[in-house]
């Protein structure tokens, strides 16, 4: 009780002996340290990376060409993958017996456990170029010693007997790339324009708000239809789709912009904003260094919400007949193909598999977002 008269400035380290040795982390380091503590976020990060890996290596991972049809196996149900037969390691899928029912106009399948189809890893295949340039002759998984009628539909087959698993794997390419470009474009536009509108207020705000009003006033569907018709037929489908996505996101930013503006209008006279201004920070700097972080949670939430919306935007486009064209597959296309009673009632795997793919990627992106948010949150989470 008596030895404590030292004044703080004489020995700052003594203030907090435990922390003295510990290096002071920079903001990014700190951010990272907090992020890795968030286990689900880290896991999600891996899932996201994994998904992108799958998309990149789709040719290798998918056992079949996504457009390869098989008339014997239309609407074939998923075949369970088993690893052991009679206790010995021998990967296989249950065989399927097929019977054509002409009365109900469908093929009926009966799992036949006695006729397992042998499955192998790194099986030889037709040569192809991985990532467009690595020559390859093997696939990750495939049937071995198969009779011509044997099949391996891990997630079932669609109406043309195409392998859903392969289609989902290939679909990841479009869905995890083009869609996200749109999302980020909307994000950047939304935050910047909304930020400017809310931060400056006054005439700038009025003008921007009128523009937003104008853009919002044009319903999307007529716009899509008009544009789809205006795009030349000779354009390849991917390009067409890309352009439509861009245009969609050129409109999509408006609601984020309004939300950002609303919040900024109330934040712009906070003392810390004024302080930054007095520090000589530029207006844009203030928006991005002070105001945006204050609204980060919302922005991250909107972002993660926008991703499924964008992935799915093409289903709506397809519904109108202006979506992606075959042979390109995407998750949206797969879902669109499941949009009928037949699939819902008799082949639910057509619906669940792409939906699961979307849910998984969106959830992991979301938890990743949560992790980032929490890492930037000054208040410690429990």
């Amino acid at each position, binding site marked *: *009780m*008596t030895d*404590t*008269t030292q*004044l*703080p*400035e004489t020995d*700052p*380290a003594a*203030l*907090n002996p*435990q*922390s*003295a040795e*510990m290096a*002071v*982390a*920079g*903001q990014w380091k*700190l951010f990272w*340290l907090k992020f890795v503590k968030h286990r689900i976020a880290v896991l999600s990060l891996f899932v996201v990376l994994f998904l992108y890996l799958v998309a990149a290596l789709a040719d290798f991972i998918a056992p079949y060409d996504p457009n390869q049809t098989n008339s014997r196996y239309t609407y074939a149900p998923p075949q369970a993958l088993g690893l052991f037969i009679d206790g010995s390691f021998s990967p296989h899928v249950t065989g399927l017996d097929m019977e054509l029912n002409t009365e109900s106009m469908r093929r009926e399948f009966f799992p036949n456990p006695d006729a397992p189809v042998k499955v192998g890893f790194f099986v030889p295949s037709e040569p192809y170029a991985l990532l467009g340039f690595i020559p390859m002759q093997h696939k990750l998984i495939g049937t071995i010693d198969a009779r011509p009628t044997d099949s391996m539909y891990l997630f079932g087959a669609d109406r043309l007997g195409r392998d859903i698993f392969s289609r989902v794997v290939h679909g990841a390419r479009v869905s995890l790339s083009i869609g996200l470009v749109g999302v980020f474009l909307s994000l950047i536009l939304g935050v910047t324009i909304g930020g400017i509108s809310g931060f400056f207020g006054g005439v700038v705000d009025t003008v921007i708000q009128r523009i937003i009003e104008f853009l919002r006033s044009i319903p999307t569907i007529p716009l899509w239809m008009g544009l789809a018709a205006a795009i030349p037929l000779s354009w390849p489908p991917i390009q067409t789709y890309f352009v439509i996505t861009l245009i969609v996101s050129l409109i999509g930013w408006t609601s984020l912009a309004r939300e950002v503006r609303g919040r900024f209008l*109330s934040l712009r*006279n*906070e*003392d*810390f904003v*004024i*302080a*930054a*201004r*007095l*520090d*000589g*920070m530029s207006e844009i*700097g203030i928006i991005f260094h*002070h105001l945006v*972080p*204050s609204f*980060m949670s919302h922005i991250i939430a909107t972002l993660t919400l926008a991703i499924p919306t964008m992935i799915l935007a093409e289903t709506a486009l397809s519904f109108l007949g202006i979506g992606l064209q075959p042979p390109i597959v995407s998750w949206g296309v797969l879902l669109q193909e499941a949009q009928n009673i037949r699939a819902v009632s008799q082949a639910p795997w057509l619906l669940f598999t792409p939906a699961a793919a979307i849910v998984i990627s969106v959830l992991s992106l979301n938890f990743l977002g949560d992790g980032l948010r929490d890492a*930037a*949150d*000054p*208040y*410690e989470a*429990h």
Partner: protein
Amino acid sequence: MSAPLSTEPLLSVRNLAVQFPTRTGLVKAVDDISFDLYRGRTLCVVGESGSGKSVTARSILQIVDRPGRIVGGSMEFARADGSTVDLARLDPRGRQIRAIRGGEIAMIFQEPMSSLSPIHRVGEQIGEMLRIHFGTPKTERRERVIDLLKQVEIPRPEEAVDRYTFEFSGGMRQRVMIAMALACNPSMLIADEPTTALDVTTQAEILALIKRLQVQHGMAVMFITHDMGVVAEIADEVLVMYRGKVMERGPVDQIFHTPENDYTKMLIGSVLKLESKSELRLNRSAPEMAPETLLEVRDLSLTFPTGLKALDGVSLSVVPGETLGIVGESGSGKTTMGRCLLRVYDPQSGVMNFRRADGSTVDLRMAGGETLRAARRDIRMIFQDPVGSLNPRKTVADIIGEPLRLARLARGKELDDRVAALMQQVGLDPAWRERYPHAFSGGQRQRIGIARAIAVKPRLIVADEATSALDVSLRSQMLDLMMQLQDEMSLSFIFISHDMSVIRYMCDRVAVMYRGQIVETGTTEAVTQNPQHAYTQALLSAIPHPDPRDRRLQDRFRYQETSP
């Protein structure tokens, strides 16, 4: 004035310990402290800034911010119905603690400027207390709120109930907090530096109000303050804290006149130091009243959209190297004036001529764009509200480093070193750089604000209550630091303060503001020794004296403007 002494403590704190786990280790903010609180008596808690006073206070109500935790100790509280509960054991969300919060133990938060909701009307926020604990009906509530606002000296309370807090001055917000705390006649009041933003006259009224309630209801008061004058004036008992521990506890007289603990001694010593003019200033030759004033303000007027005329023809001037003190009633427009100088607000009329480093002058009122930016680099501001002025999402290193970075004075490692040096200068552990503002005590935050203001070499600093949350010893240190900087680079200060000792200690000249006007200016000596204006006289009469044997607030008088 002596309250009925009760032998049973109302609150009995034993071995309380509160910790904050952080990445770099445990922060033992409160480390095994014990004290008692009796009905009708006042316990003043003093101590170093960051010593755990506020955390202690918050612990009593179980509202320590995450990740803080009460890790040990008990807090026996005698409830109004005669039962006794251990507050430390109560569920922080439970019904029991809720009934106690506000109803039996009310708290005035240290940082009134941010502790109120910006989107609810003042009246609503106060009235809520009545609704929760008494279920008072709406109309009656309003009347009662107006009455409370009147008691805490808010002008025109009928209008004020419907205002929002951002339309209030710092002192007014603080008084709203006080009104809120007193609304339910609690049996115990925790006042965490409740008068930091109040001018001495208002402060005196508030202290009297608390005293009155204490006498009427036998309220126990735990009063956290740095103002030893106030301690001397109101305390029955004093608790001295340092680094989370209790250094010394005892009757007020003993603490002031026969302190045992070294820290206490040093504290009392610092008080005396602040009682007179700083040595640095005494030794300095008065700044030559050079013809070139640094800043010349004439007839500055500003009316808020609410119709309130906050500035009414203010004129003042500052010469290089000079410190101009601004004192005045709470709500008189000091902050507004300071903000006008930096063009945070746009005054409607007047002239603000600022002499730039190259000798040319600009009228800041008309300036825009690059001119204004350049001027802002020369003029810095220390905000009255430290919480609000620090972005809660930036680490302290970022906040202090920001002006340096923006002025391109330093980057990378050098920036880091400069930040560390600045923190050290204002008495903060550089190891705390990675903390966010909310993890600091009120005084620490205030020092962050000071560090930020002095980071780039300005020519004029508008310091708005820059040291109000600092304990006396730190305060004198900070003032010394500022004066040192002033001498080194011929810096000028406009020093807005309520604390007359600070003004005396540091200022060359003083301007007295009242209701948007400057009613008197002169050298510090002239104004303090020979006040001309009646308001100034009233002000000086209300300064508490840091000696419990010389309680003189009863002798104060109050200035009432004759014309409406």
